[in-house]
């Protein structure tokens, strides 16, 4: 890998001793960023945990108001996008840039599907008055216990912040797609795709936990 001329090695940061050191530094930096994201979402899971143990019946009623079929669909969509992200990394490592672009595009499409499904879910909720905070007014849902509003508060914060992370992921993957089509990535240098895939897998991880905890409270 060292033989490539300096133009191709424009990606190499000179304060590193070797490209290997640069990649392992990037990996460690990314894992630290993922650890920070885990703790960021831990705040939401703790709020969920506290309020679910305090008001189990309100949470189960609230969860029944959610449509778990859409949630399940979203889970499958995200798992598939995780697969395509991993395949994108694999193909860019073996140098098949066309396959990489295909997989990157697939990941972006799946992420958009996820957001569209989310949009329908939200609009269904809005029309039934199940909104966060003081707008919570389930006019045609009869006598809901008071703390169902806490459930929907946490539901909207959790899925909202997660949706924001999906949005950020889409932006980054579009950036990767453009760079890949410009031929910037090669088996010697595909760190950005690797990092993007790591981030995307974490977003999928968060949803893997959010889906059963929010949608499937019996």
């Amino acid at each position, binding site marked *: 890998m060292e033989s490539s001329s300096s133009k191709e090695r424009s990606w190499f940061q000179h304060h590193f001793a070797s490209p290997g050191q640069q990649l392992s530094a990037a990996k460690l930096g990314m894992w630290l960023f993922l650890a920070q994201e885990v703790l960021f979402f831990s705040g939401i899971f703790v709020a969920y945990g506290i309020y679910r143990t305090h008001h189990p019946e309100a949470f189960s009623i609230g969860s029944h108001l959610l449509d778990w079929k859409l949630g399940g669909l979203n889970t499958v969509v995200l*798992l598939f996008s995780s697969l395509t992200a991993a395949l994108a990394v694999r193909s860019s490592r073996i140098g098949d840039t066309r396959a990489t672009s295909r997989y990157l595009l697939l990941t972006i499409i799946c992420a958009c599907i996820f957001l569209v499904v989310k949009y329908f879910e939200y609009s269904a909720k809005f029309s039934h008055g199940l909104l966060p905070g003081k707008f919570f007014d389930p*006019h045609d849902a009869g006598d809901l216990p008071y703390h169902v509003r806490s459930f929907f508060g946490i539901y909207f914060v959790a899925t909202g912040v997660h949706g924001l992370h999906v949005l950020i992921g889409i932006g980054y993957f579009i950036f990767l797609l453009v760079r890949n089509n410009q031929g910037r990535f090669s088996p010697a240098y595909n760190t950005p795709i690797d990092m993007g895939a790591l981030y995307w897998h974490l977003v999928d991880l968060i949803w893997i936990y959010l889906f059963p905890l929010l949608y499937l409270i019996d």
Partner: protein
Amino acid sequence: MAHEEVSVRNYVVVFSVLLVLTALTVAVYQVHLGAWNLVVAVIIATMKAALVVVVFMHMAHEARFNALVFLGSLLFAGIFLAYTLNDTERRMEVDEYHGALVDPETGDWAYGVAEQLSAIADRESGARTEEAREADLETLEGAAPAAGGAEELGADEERADDEEADAEEASDERDDKEE
């Protein structure tokens, strides 16, 4: 990279295992296990998460420290949850008043929960004035088109189909205090 490339087939196999586990989660949801539902759901989710981390995120070929960092963050998130629960769940155990929301003897609520009480009172009496709800509907309709079919919703079935607001009872004005 040092190790040989993982074949596409491996990834697809892992993906299908993840789908099976998702289906399993939904299946377990149908079965009523009481408190165990949460435990089982979390276990299955953790198995899926472990699969994604180890295979998709190449944790197996990573430097050991990266795994330590990730598990460390889970540990600290767990500590945060455990100690906070240790507090919120174990109030009123030494002195039944200390931390109680409702007075154990007289049953009246602690002070400072006016909005909550008025909301509960509204809900019990089902009384909400017509215009307040209309106003809310406009703001919502403007915000998002009402979903087409009548979503099956909430407690009683037959109530869901008369979507229009004619049958709602009137209720006293809810004072949505603007912060």
